[in-house]
Structure formats: structure tokens, C-alpha cells
């Protein structure tokens, strides 16, 4: 069933695909070392796509296309809008960094990023197991190539190999789980799988068997313990611009896929997957926070911190359904969505500062490289400090409200064990506060090793300042983004 609505539903994806191909061709035109022409075209395209998605989100429509294979609802539109903006910001921060490392001899950074974004779009909008899988593969294949973009760098190539091998295995898990579900329910369509499970006539063992593999695949993509091993190595090994491309926007897509598969597809199995997610979350909070303390490399530290942060996201996801009661469901999922969005915002700014401090032939990755940043540049030190306090969950920064809302969802379930879990989570975030504070300490209390000025282009400076300001301003006025998350999730659950 391909009708007009189908084309309307995938209009942004179509624009993105067409422009990605066009830019790949136009990039052949001779241009300067920083590829200003390709860069400008890419940003214009992405800006346009973000506007379309934002407009679509504000209409509140829900469209199904291609015989229910894709869905375009408010949640998808907002997540796609945020993902697009995140990729734009990544490219703004990453271009000077990549240019100084010989990664801009061709325009691959831009075109591959656009294809990765297209993959995310398809994941977010997929309403069918195979479509989601295709989107995921498009995203990860582009990511493998991006990680390996610095061919002559041993670390980057090693990271790409690790990422590829483990990523392929995780995709295999996911696909295997999907095939089990297909075998049990006879359909790949998420809505039909849901109906088939709801009837209660499908054998539970088979479903749970498939579910385990799906959760494992998702856990790999989200990067939670015990499927987290790739994260530190890839974060550290990949060129920082690419690290941000992997660690930023794709988290939004991973969240969307988790929602589609576990909630829209398998809500009747909630009691099973909630337990799995709870274990993953508890382990992630522990290992992520404690391992981060031991790191001396900022990228690696942020990698472990990501693992811990994803543990918090999972809290929001597994608190949704309590004893078959779905009253607090929207509350819990929207808190998880708020968490992911603010996490991506904060991560962007943090990696932006890391890239800014890196110079030609010098990676500013060690914690010691941040020494005395406040004396070299109060603005960038301020942005980084805001990010660190936000990730530690100190008000009035936005990260506090993210933690507040997931903890609120957790306690709202009214189970004594969940209150215990909430106390565990806050204790873990206390451990987390230690290493975030350590970076602030290095920037503010230590003396600088170098007195060199931090130089940055106007575009980087402006975007970074806005990004840092948002971390604070969304903390003072969080109501809008919270309402937006709540409304998106409510609409998703309602259809």
C-alpha cells in the first residue's frame, strides 16, 4: 500500500537521502582544506530537515506509511528533530578538529554523517522489525566507516575493528531475537506482534527466548553493562568528532527503538523485560560510576559516565508498568525521554570543549590537559563546568531534573524495593559526582600547563556558548521540554 500519505510520512527522510547523494557528488568540486562548501550545504540541508521535523511535531499528527511499515508520530518527529540538530552541532564542533587531522581530504565526514542520520531516522520511524533493523545497519555501517576515517591512526583503526566485530554480533543478537518473535507470532509488524502477544495464545517460552536476544541487542546499542565493553575503547580510540557522532545523536535513536520494540511491540511481556532492564541498570550504575573514577583520559571517563547515565535512562523505562497497571506509564517513559534528550545536549557541549582544546597534532584528552582552563578561557571552562555539574545532577542545571524525573517515576511505582533502588541510584550518583567534580577541580583550582590562548572559529564559539547556556537555561526553565516529552509519549501510547 503505497499512497500519498506514505510519501508525506517519509518526506524528511527522502529529502535527507536525496541531499546526501547530491552532496556526495557536489563535494567533488575543488574546495578549501576545511571543505567550506560541502559544510555549508550539509548544514543547510540538516537545518531544513530539522525545521520540517519540528513543524511536523507541532502539528501533532500521526501518520502510517507503506502499509504500516513506517510511523511518523510526535515522538518520532521530536527525536528526529533533536537528532538532526545534534548532528549539525557535531559537525560544527568537529570540522576544525577533523581538518587538522587530515580527515577532510574528501567529504566523507559529512556524507557519512548524513547517512548515519538517515539510519537514525529510519530506526526512529520504523514500525516493522525489518525496517528497524535496516535503519540500525545503515547507522552502524556508517559509524564503522566514520571511526576508521583516520586510516593512518592505529588507535582509530583498532577501535573501528572492535566496534565492527562487537557491533555485528549485537546486530546478530537483535536479528535472532526478531526471528524468534516472528516465528512465535507470525508477523514482523510491531502492532500485529503486540496483538498476537496480547491474545495470550503464543507460547511464553518462545517469546521470552526471543525477548532475551532483543534486550541484549538493545543493551549493546544503548551501551549498558554487561554489553558495554566496546564503549570505552571506541570512545577513546575514535577521533573525537566521530566519538561525538556515535555518542550523541544515536542515543536518541536507541531510545526510540527501545520504545518501539519493548513498549509498542511487547508491552504484555513487560514483567519479563522490566526485570532484565532493572539488572542491566543496577550493574551499569555500579560499573559505570566506579570505573570512571579510575580513568585519566577524559574521553574514556565520559564513556564510563555514559554507561552510568544510560543506567538512569533504563530506570525510567523499567518503572513504566507496575503489576500490569499502566497509569504511570507515560510518566515513566517521558522521564526517560527527557533524560536522553538532556543527556545528548550535555554530551555535545562536553565533547565540543574537548575538541576545541585539541590542536594540530595534539589531542587534549588527558584530564591533566584541562588544568587551569579557567585562566585560559573562562567561557569554555564555564561551559565544561556546567556540563559536569549537570551530569552530576546538581541543580539548577538540567541534569538534575532528568535525575529527578526518573527517580520520581521509580518511586511512584510504590514498591518498597523501588525505594531501595532509588537510594542505591542516588548513592551511585554521589560516586559519580566525585569524578565530575575532579574535572571541575582541574579546570578551576590547578595552574595551567600552557598559557596559550584557546582559538576557535566564530561558528564554534557561538554554538558552544548557546549549547552551554542551554544546559543552564533548561535547568531554570525545564517545564517546556518536560511537557514536550510527556505529550510525545502520551501520543505514542495512545495510538
Amino acid at each position: 500500500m503505497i499512497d500519498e500519505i506514505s510519501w508525506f510520512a517519509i518526506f524528511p527522510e527522502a529529502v535527507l537521502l536525496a541531499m546526501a547523494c547530491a552532496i556526495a557528488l557536489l563535494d567533488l568540486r575543488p574546495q578549501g582544506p576545511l571543505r567550506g562548501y560541502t559544510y555549508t550545504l550539509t548544514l543547510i540541508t540538516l537545518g531544513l530537515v530539522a525545521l520540517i521535523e519540528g513543524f511536523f511535531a507541532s502539528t501533532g499528527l500521526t501518520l502510517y506509511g507503506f502499509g504500516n511499515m513506517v510511523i511518523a508520530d510526535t515522538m518520532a518527529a521530536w527525536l528526529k528533530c533533536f537528532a538532526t540538530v545534534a548532528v549539525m552541532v557535531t559537525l560544527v564542533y568537529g570540522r576544525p578538529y577533523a581538518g587538522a587531522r587530515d580527515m577532510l581530504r574528501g567529504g566523507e565526514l559529512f556524507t557519512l554523517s548524513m547517512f548515519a542520520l538517515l539510519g537514525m531516522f529510519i530506526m526512529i520511524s520504523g514500525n516493522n522489525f525489518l525496517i528497524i533493523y535496516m535503519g540500525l545497519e545503515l547507522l552502524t555501517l556508517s559509524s564503522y566507516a566514520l571511526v576508521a576515517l583516520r586510516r593512518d591512526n592505529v588507535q582509530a583503526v583498532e577501535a573501528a575493528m572492535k566496534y565492527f566485530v562487537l557491533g555485528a554480533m549485537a546486530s546478530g543478537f537483535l536479528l535472532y531475537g526478531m526471528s524468534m518473535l516472528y516465528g512465535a507470532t507470525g508477523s514482523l509488524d510491531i502492532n500485529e506482534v503486540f496483538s498476537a502477544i496480547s491474545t495470550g495464545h503464543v507460547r511464553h517460552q518462545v517469546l521470552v527466548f526471543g525477548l532475551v536476544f532483543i534486550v541484549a541487542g538493545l543493551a549493546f546499542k544503548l551501551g549498558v553493562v554487561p554489553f558495554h565493553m566496546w564503549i570505552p575503547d571506541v570512545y577513546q580510540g575514535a577521533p573525537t568528532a566521530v566519538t561525538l557522532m556515535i555518542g550523541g545523536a544515536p542515543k536518541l535513536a536507541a531510545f526510540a527503538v527501545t520504545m518501539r520494540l519493548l513498549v509498542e511491540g511487547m508491552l504484555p511481556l513487560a514483567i519479563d523485560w522490566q526485570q532484565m532492564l532493572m539488572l542491566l541498570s543496577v550493574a551499569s550504575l555500579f560499573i559505570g560510576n566506579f570505573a570512571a573514577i579510575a580513568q585519566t583520559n577524559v574521553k574514556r571517563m565520559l564513556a564510563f559516565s555514559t554507561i552510568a547515565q544510560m543506567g538512569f535512562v533504563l530506570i525510567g523505562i523499567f518503572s513504566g508498568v507496575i503489576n500490569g497497571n499502566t497509569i504511570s506509564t507515560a510518566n515513566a517513559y517521558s522521564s526517560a525521554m527527557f533524560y536522553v534528550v538532556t543527556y545528548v545536549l550535555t554530551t555535545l557541549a562536553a565533547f565540543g570543549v574537548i575538541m576545541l582544546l585539541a590542536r594540530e597534532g595534539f589531542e587534549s584528552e588527558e584530564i591533566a590537559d584541562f588544568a587551569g582552563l579557567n585562566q585560559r578561557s573562562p567561557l569554555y571552562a564555564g561551559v565544561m563546568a556546567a556540563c559536569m555539574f549537570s551530569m552530576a545532577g546538581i541543580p539548577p542545571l538540567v541534569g538534575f531534573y532528568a535525575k529527578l524525573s526518573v527517580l520520581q517515576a521509580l518511586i511512584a511505582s510504590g514498591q518498597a524495593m523501588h525505594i531501595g533502588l532509588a537510594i542505591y541510584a542516588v548513592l551511585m550518583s554521589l560516586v559519580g559526582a566525585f569524578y565530575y567534580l575532579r574535572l571541575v577541580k582541574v579546570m578551576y583550582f590547578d595552574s595551567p600547563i600552557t598559557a596559550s590562548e584557546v582559538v576557535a572559529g566564530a561558528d564554534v564559539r557561538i554554538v558552544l556558548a548557546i549549547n552551554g547556556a542551554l544546559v543552564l537555561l533548561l535547568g531554570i526553565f525545564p517545564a517546556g521540554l518536560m511537557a514536550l516529552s510527556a505529550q510525545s509519549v502520551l501520543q505514542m501510547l495512545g495510538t
Partner: protein
Amino acid sequence: MGLLSLAIWTPIVFGVVLLALGRDDQAGAVRWVALIGALAGFLVTLPLYAGFQLGTAEMQFVENSMWIERFNVNYHLGVDGISFWFVLLTAFINVVVVIAGWESITHKVSQYMASFLILSGLMIGVFCALDGLLFYVFFEATLIPMYLIIGIWGGPNKIYAAFKFFLYTLLGSLLTLVALIYLYITSNGSFDIATWHALPLGQTAQTAIFFAFFAAFAVKVPMWPVHTWLPDVHVEAPTGGSAVLAAIMLKLGAYGFLRFSLPIAPDAAHEWAGLMITLSLVAVVYVGLVAMVQQDMKKLVAYSSVAHMGFVTLGFFIFNDLGMAGGIVQMIAHGFVSGAMFLCIGVLYDRVHSREIASYGGVVNTMPRFAAFALLFAMANCGLPGTAGFVGEWMVILAAVKFNFWIGMASASALIFGAAYTLWMFKRVYLGPVTNHHVQELQDINAREFVMLALLAVAVLYMGINPKPFTDVMDASVAGLLQHVAQSKLP
């Protein structure tokens, strides 16, 4: 915009402007802007005094507007007799610390001044917030500027002190956050503190909530045995940081007991009052003795702060109006006196760069005007009648004797210890012959320091001679609170 909003945001706006525009090479201008900001912040609190209605326990100057709709969080401000004086006290101390840092801070002046201005606004916010989450946001946000103040402008071991301060207090507050969320859910989605006051709670829930709040507030007060962060932090913090910490930040914890622990969990508060009284008495007696053997002046005053705050919590948990009002008066008086004590140490430290008692001796010979101020504040610290320090301690002791003779007896012993450690320090530092060339070369205080100390001296004497305006404001609210606490909230 209401008066309370003005009181909160005026210093914060000045602070942000300083952060954005302040340059290191224009330190002079930065100092003046900071002083104007602090003065403006103080001036906008004065209409509160003029407009405050006595004789009612109701919240006044209330502002209420929706802040976060999804969680039903309101920007809800108001003051009653309990919180009223702390708004003025905070704004006043802020002026004093801006003056105190005028010459001694030469590094990153704009960030220093901005930190204090923002901190002052946040602390006023804590005292005004009538919404649980708003309170928590202000309460926690104060950690960030204080962390930076200790870490950037502190002494040799500043990093240890900054981390200890931050993590120690964060641990307590995080447990409180869980309690706040629990209350939010139990009250069917309300963060309003007044709603929580009326919320019936079972004994187990009350006990859990009481101790969750205890974790945050007892650390902040600090009560024995969780007071160990305070001496370390005071020793390393810059003078202004110590003054604000002792004068205002400790009061945030004590205020939290009055606003949260007692009215929300009254049955648990009664049940555990014995424990709280014991801890308070240990602080008063034992920590008083610990103060006596200190070699470092800042440490001595820090321990003396713990002992004085013991009076405050003692006053709260004997549940009578004299004790509670005495506790609040003691909080205000301690704000003036301990702030002044730390500033005096700062005056000496700026000149000699030592806080050791042994480095001094005979300061009165070279700095007579300064020694006069120091004597006044030392007397206030031991609770001499006619100074601010006397009023609160006397009220609490009286109430304690009424409650139980032996408790009153034990708490009264603090007057002896207080006099002992304070006067002994005074003798060793100020009196006697000049002991070394550092003291010989001391210059007496300049006009700026004179103004700073005179402001505090006036406050200490005024409050000691005429405490009635202070107690008048709080009487109705204290009576209302006690009446509320006397009723069981068990369902």
C-alpha cells in the same frame, strides 16, 4: 515582581553581569560594581521589614506562579517569622563579605565577587521557598559557588576541603531528595510544603522521612558526629567563604529542621527528640572542650560554631516556645558573631599570613582599635549579657532547665567552656607583650576594615541590648509551629 523575588534575583543578576563582563585588569571597577550589587541586594530587603505584619503565623509577601507544570512545581515564595530575619541577615552579611574581600583578593576578582553575590541570592531563595523542590534547587545550588570559592581562593589544602565540603553535604541532600519525591507521591502530586505539613503519615514513614531530612540538615548544621567537615573547610576557605559559611550556610540546616523535619514528621520528631537532645548536648559540651585545645584560630572558631549550633538544635527539640525562639535568636546572633570572628582572623591573616595562635601575642599593642573590636566579638562569643550572643543562649538554657534540670545544667556549662576557649585565645593572641617582629610591624585597621567591623559591632550590640524586635517577629510563627507539632499526624 515581588519583594522576595527582588531580594533573590538582584544579587544574582549583578553576579551574572560580573561574570559576563568582568575583566581581570579592571579589578577596581569590579569591586565597586559588586559592592553596589550587594548594597542593592540589602536595600531591597528593607521594605520587607517595614511591611512585615506582626502577630500572625501566616506566610507574608507570598508569590506563587507555576514553574514546572508537569510536576506541579510552583515558584512559591513567602516568609514568616521564622525565616524573615535570615533574608535580611544574608543580604547584610553579603555586604560585609564583599567589603572583606576588597584588598585581600587579587586573583580572578570578578569571579570571586560574582560567586558571593550569586551565593547570597541562592541562600535567600532557600529561606523564602515554600515549594519543596524550589527549596531543594536553591539548597543544592549553593554548593556550586561555595565549592569554587573554597577551591579557587582557599588555603594550601583547599582541594581536599572543597571535595569534602561538596561530597559530604551532597550525600545528605541526595537522601533528602528521595524523601521529597516520596512526599510528592504520597501527597498525590504536590511539592507544596504547606500541603506536606497537613499530610497524615504513618509512624514508619515519618521515621524514615525524619532521618532522610536529618541526613541533609544535620550535616549542614553540623551536629555532632557529622561535624567533622566543618573545621577542615573553615581552615582552608578564604575569609569571606568562612564568614558566609558560618554566618548563613549552617543556618540553612537548622532552618530545614523547622520547615521540614518538625512539621512534616512531628511524631517521629517527638519520638527521636531524646536522641537529638543528646547529640546537641554532646556538641555543646564535648565539642566545646575540643575547641579549647585548638592551635589554629580558625579551627577554634569552627568548633565553637558547632557548639553554638548545638544550642540551636537543643532549643528546637525541647518543644517549648522559649527554647525554639531562643534557638532562632541564637541562629541570628551566631550569624553576626561567628561572621565577625572569622573576619577578625582574616584581618590578622592578611597581615601575618598565619592562623596559628602561637604566631601572635600582644597584638593589642600595635593594633589597639582592632583589638577593641576583637574583644567585643570575643565577649559576644562567650555570651556576655548585653551582646547578641547572650540572648539566645540564655533563652535556650532557661527553656532547658524548665524541661529538665540536668539538661539545663549541662547546657549551661557551655557558658563556662565558651568563655574559657574564647578568652584564652584572646589572651594569647592580643594581650601580653609583643612576642615577635611580625606583631611588631602590624598596622592597625584601615577605614575599610573599620567600616566592616563597625557594621557587625553595631548589629551585635543592638541585638544584645534590644532583642525585642527580633523576638517579636518570630513569636507568632513559633507558637503556630509548636501548636502544629503538638498534634499527631498519624492517620
